């Protein structure tokens, strides 16, 4: 039986434009994150960084991309070919999917119509993000398994056990946030912060746990054990070459971008500029300024990711597990209890 659903053409066009824009922006930002990573690492180490391709080396990501495509594609003869190709595809796909529920801005007013700058504001947005992120583990796991190589498998096991253990603490820290906001829709969480204080005021501990866990989820230093070059050659992507390797590395940067966006949306008011409504500006101007403010926050968070990476050494595996299970999870539970008590009392 066919269910008659009428989708207005305008709606389709509007959403298509937003989807394409979000996709392009996350790819471009991830691309320039690779450049920023090299630049930041260089500057923190008293070097200059890439400066040959284009002015200030701005074309470096393009050169890297071309290099990745031109490289010889090697699939090990003992590898499981289908899974070998599936691994990076999953990693890349899940990285791109998360951007769909993040509100990139308030709404634009065009000819009396309100156009929300969000692909879709589903009422379980938080759950959606967690679901998609946990599928991302499969990309790593399948890649490591399909390579048929000890080091890859070790890296993959490390990666998946790390991601799974830190996801628990991450989820628990989010539960406290959901208790204060009372909603799972990210659009609404941000909306509430425009009229109230930012959530960081109510959930400082929750934010801290969430941030540490997102470092672990993105496999960034100090939690970059899955790809520790010193012990595991390259970790789960040891056997990968050409653009498949590129996809893995690229997915990491998209994840970093998305988790920066999630952190600023959940705890730092998203597109909210405090007290902008007192200026009495036009709605469209406010929205555009808000989006720019949102991206500024994201860029600052990405910088924080890199800054931490080039400061801290890597954890040992048992330290990582200790921190995850014995400190982060109890701390998150305590945070829930404190939050619950406060909600009851006030």
């Amino acid at each position, binding site marked *: 039986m066919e269910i008659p659903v009428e989708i207005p053409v305008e709606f389709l066009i509007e959403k298509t434009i937003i989807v394409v824009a979000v996709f392009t922006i996350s790819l471009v930002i991830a691309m320039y994150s690779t450049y920023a990573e090299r630049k930041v690492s260089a*500057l*923190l*180490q*008293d*070097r*200059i960084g890439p400066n040959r391709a284009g002015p200030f080396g701005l074309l470096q990501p393009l050169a890297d991309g071309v290099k990745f495509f031109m490289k010889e594609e090697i699939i090990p003869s003992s590898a499981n070919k289908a899974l070998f190709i599936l691994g990076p595809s999953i990693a890349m796909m899940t990285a791109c999917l998360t951007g769909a529920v993040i509100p990139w801005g308030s709404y634009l007013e065009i000819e009396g119509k309100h156009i929300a700058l969000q692909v879709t504001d589903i009422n379980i947005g938080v759950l959606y993000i967690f679901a998609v992120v946990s599928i991302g583990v499969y990309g790593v796991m399948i890649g490591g398994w399909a390579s048929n190589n000890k080091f890859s498998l070790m890296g993959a096991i490390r990666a998946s056990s790390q991601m799974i253990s830190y996801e628990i603490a991450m989820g628990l820290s989010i539960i406290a946030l959901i208790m204060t906001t009372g909603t799972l829709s990210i659009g609404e969480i941000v909306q509430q912060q425009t009229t109230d204080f930012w959530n960081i005021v109510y959930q400082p501990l929750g934010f801290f746990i969430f941030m540490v866990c997102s470092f672990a989820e993105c496999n960034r230093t100090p939690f970059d054990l899955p790809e520790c070059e010193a012990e595991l050659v390259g970790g789960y992507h040891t056997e990968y070459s050409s653009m498949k390797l590129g996809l893995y590395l690229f997915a990491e940067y998209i994840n970093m971008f998305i988790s920066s966006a999630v952190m600023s949306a959940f705890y730092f008011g998203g597109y909210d500029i405090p007290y902008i409504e007192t200026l009495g500006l036009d709605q469209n101007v406010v929205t555009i300024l808000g989006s720019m403010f949102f991206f500024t926050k994201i860029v600052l968070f990405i910088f924080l990711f890199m*800054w*931490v990476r*080039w*400061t*801290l050494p890597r954890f040992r595996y048992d330290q990582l597990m200790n921190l995850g299970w014995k400190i982060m999870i109890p701390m998150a539970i305590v945070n829930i209890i404190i939050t619950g008590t406060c909600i009851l009392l006030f």
Partner: protein
Amino acid sequence: MQLTNRSKVVVDKKMTFMERIYIPAILGGMRITLSHLFKKKATIQYPEQQREFSFVYRGKHILKRDEQGRENCTACGLCAVSCPAEAITIIADERKKGEEHLYREEKYASLYEINMLRCIFCGLCEEACPKDAVYLTEELVPAQYNRKDFIYGKDKLVQPLGTSAHPKTYKPYKK
């Protein structure tokens, strides 16, 4: 015996709570890395900017000619003997009549080869040479694709005719 005041006694004492949560230490580390963001960079933009070589830099060898353009080398073999890496091969020959404008002494090196892969650029050949013939210049020995291209014969070593002792590349050693 105490040489400096910088020695530190290492103690394995129990860490306090503030030390155990590591956050102050992490913030301290991040402050240090951030301060490096604004420091002067050590990079030299190589092909455009070049650092000056040290006055005593030892690079590619040169076999000198005298003021009349005659080769100084008399194939005595002292450089080959002094060479700790055994990089130098010399075959001596007698100067024929009519070659007085080419070679300064009655004996000359018909073959003078230095294997740049063996050479350690110690400069002992230069020290050993009694005839003021072999010097180490500031030129670099470039990379090659084949091993045999690293064996430099007279074509690459002898100072080109008509050039003077160039102050930059054919530096005078010991004034």
